[in-house]
């Protein structure tokens, strides 16, 4: 019905956070967390959330659950459907947002581990000792 609105809400918040972090990084000269900046990592989450939201919105339009005129959500026309719609948002919508965020967390963890594993090699290499 309108489950995609929950990941969309999260996407709006994380996009604002990414912009703030980006500005801060620019001011302090691009502080890097291992190999990738924090804003770059947040951009992965934003891309997944916005991409998912856009494609799910199309699916909802396809099934007639979203229309281009007010109130936009067809469930809003019938008061009896508002309750189930909110329930769907609270269950499926929240679960979708959590799933994407958890997968993003795993991606960040893996990238940190990979970057961490590469660091000692750089320290031990003879090229880094001299010069």
């Amino acid at each position, binding site marked *: 019905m309108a*489950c*995609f609105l929950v*990941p969309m809400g999260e996407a709006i918040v994380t996009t604002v956070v990414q912009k703030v972090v980006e500005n801060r990084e620019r001011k302090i000269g691009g502080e890097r967390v291992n190999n990738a900046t924090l804003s770059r990592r947040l951009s*992965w989450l934003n*891309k*997944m*959330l*916005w*991409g*998912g*939201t*856009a*494609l*799910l919105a*199309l*699916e909802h339009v*396809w099934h007639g659950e979203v229309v281009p005129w007010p109130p936009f959500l067809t469930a809003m026309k019938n008061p009896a459907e508002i309750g189930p719609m909110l329930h769907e948002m609270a*269950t*499926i919508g929240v*679960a*979708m947002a959590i*799933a*994407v965020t958890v*997968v993003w967390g795993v991606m960040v963890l893996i990238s940190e581990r990979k970057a961490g594993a590469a660091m000692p090699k750089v320290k031990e290499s003879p090229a880094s000792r001299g010069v």
Partner: protein
Amino acid sequence: MWLITTALAAIITTAIWYAKAPEDKYKLGLLSLFFWGATLMWLVDHVMAYVTEGGEFFEINLDAALLGVAVIVLALFVWEIVLLVSDPKGALRKALRG
């Protein structure tokens, strides 16, 4: 059906992105993350609907297949718009200058 087509698109674009990595001139990383986000969301939707309501896990009919194609077309369209706006090759800039 649209879950299958989107997952397939995600796998293919990720493979192409990896083959070209670390270079990502044509923003294939963006396209694959778009597809993965949608795949994850639909997977959750399908699993929860299957657990609570039962029935078939995959809806396989003409309407679902067409939706699967439409979803991929929309993602490719958004990706192309991003690509044309950022114009990494400078081709659009050169074409507009004449």
